[in-house]
């Protein structure tokens, strides 16, 4: 048999398998869309994958510019994606996330958490000192309404519930806080400078406002307002800053082969913490809408709520809440 005849015979025998390809592709599409617990499906998909790989290799050689090749490339890629998407069980994935992965991320981020807390605290002190010394600088950090209210001897939070219902207030606050927290994380992309800016700015604002209300004798009222929700809210700010700082450092000093690969590893790993941060901010937002502006809550009650919620945060982030008793290696 000459080469041309042999090639033709191979092509004919190959194309006679077209029905097998169609069946394999249908199965891959079906399994990609739904979920199957049937082990036979997985076995058949693996067989299909081998069949498509084998035939694609021959088609690439025998019919490189054909629609048959285009079809097989697509079918093979689909089978590959279906075979490699892995099992996904929401319940067990969430349990693993909160019990093992987030505590491991927190341990990994421990130095970043310390540093972002230090930076935030220094910014608070800086803002406080600045406005204490130059009160007119409060205009840089606070709105004219807030300044006018404090100058009248009244916190802007007083009577807040008469204007906005608690639920609306909570939703607005938690949405805003979550966006700020996510920004602090994403801004790490600017080699950490964006995160530093957000941490610094928020710290300066907090310190400046505290100094300003202190000058008008309202420090105790402001403390009473923020103590219930603020412990967790400010801690989450530092945690998001730590996640952003890790992303920034991955770009400045790549630990992996390339800068982008290092960025990817750091972003994916530290990003898990943001899920816990967002959930904690939902709770803090609810407290800020329902407890903090409500004058019926005494200071001791607010303090107890704030401390309890902060301990809850520690239990959540350490994995203790979900049954982790010992340190596990990073998955």
């Amino acid at each position: 048999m000459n080469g041309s005849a042999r090639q033709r015979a191979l092509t004919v025998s190959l194309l006679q398998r077209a029905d097998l390809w169609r069946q394999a592709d249908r199965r891959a599409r079906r399994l990609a869309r739904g979920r199957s617990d049937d082990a036979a499906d997985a076995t058949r998909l693996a067989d299909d994958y081998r069949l498509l790989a084998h035939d694609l290799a021959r088609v690439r050689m025998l019919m490189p510019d054909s629609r048959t090749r285009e079809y097989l490339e697509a079918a093979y890629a689909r089978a590959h994606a279906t075979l490699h998407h892995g099992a996904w069980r929401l319940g067990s994935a969430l349990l693993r996330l909160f019990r093992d992965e987030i505590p491991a991320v927190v341990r990994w981020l421990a130095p970043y958490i310390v540093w972002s807390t230090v930076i935030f605290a220094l910014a608070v002190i800086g803002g406080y000192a600045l406005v204490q010394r130059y009160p007119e600088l409060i205009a840089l950090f606070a709105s004219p309404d807030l300044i006018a209210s404090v100058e009248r001897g009244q916190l802007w939070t007083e009577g807040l519930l008469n204007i906005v219902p608690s639920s609306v207030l909570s939703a607005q606050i938690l949405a805003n806080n979550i966006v700020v927290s996510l920004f602090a994380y994403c801004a790490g992309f600017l080699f950490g400078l964006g995160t530093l800016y957000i941490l610094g700015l928020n710290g300066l604002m907090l310190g400046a406002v505290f100094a300003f209300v202190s000058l008008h004798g309202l420090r105790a009222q402001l403390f009473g307002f923020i103590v219930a929700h603020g412990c967790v809210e400010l801690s989450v700010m530092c945690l998001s800053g730590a996640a952003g700082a890790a992303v920034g450092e991955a770009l400045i000093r790549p630990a992996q082969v390339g800068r982008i690969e290092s960025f990817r590893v750091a972003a994916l790993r530290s990003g898990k913490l943001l899920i816990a941060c967002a959930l904690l901010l939902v709770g803090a937002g609810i407290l800020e809408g329902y407890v903090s502006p409500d004058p019926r809550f005494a200071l001791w009650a607010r303090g107890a709520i704030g401390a309890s919620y902060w301990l809850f945060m520690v239990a959540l982030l350490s994995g203790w809440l979900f049954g982790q008793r010992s340190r596990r290696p990073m998955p």
Partner: protein
Amino acid sequence: MSEVAPGLAVDSVTGIDVSLPVAGPGARAYAFLVDWHIRVILALGWFVLGALLYNGRFSLSPPLSSDARWFGAVVAPALAIYFLYHHAVELAMRGSTPGKRMAGVRIVARDGGAPSAGALLTRNVFRLVDSLPLFYGVGLITVVLTRDNLRIGDMAAGTLLVFEHADARLPSPAADATQVSRLDAAGAEIVAELLERWPALQPEARVRLARQALTRYGADPAESGNHDDDAWRTRLERLARPQ
């Protein structure tokens, strides 16, 4: 192995690499615009329906004073639909959205498999940066400048947008047609496709193509009259039919 289409080549345990053509800014923009319209329509639809039910008459006006029911039932869900559309839909459709389907693209991990839930969430969180300062300016610039057309969210999540070719079809008569002595596999495909598209082509164009095919595969094109459309088609069918 012969040439592989440009794009991402993923190693496979079979030894045959998976070739995934990477989508460029055009396909991305197309998918985004379709999704944007869908989420705007959904969010507006919710808002309008909610407002009408809330007011109990044909009016979209908000209440004069802040009201929890208005915010919780009308405003917040509409905002959630708009801002969480990509997060929710990509998770539910495992890396696809209606817009991506229409553009024929999907999100894959670097190993060619479906991306994890964490990767999809990370990819979407970084939209905050990609969408800066306006109209996805940062994302568009990085898509144009990077080799694999990645926006920052893709870099962070280790994902790519690739063409799916979900509509790639196997020419059905191909297997039979190659049994004809004069046709090779590529020729069989060409003839099959020409016959498939025959009714949609202009008469002059299909006659010209039929003549070229018959000349190329050894038949005498002079046998058919120049204006006899059906005769050309019959000759092509004879060429493609197994003997």
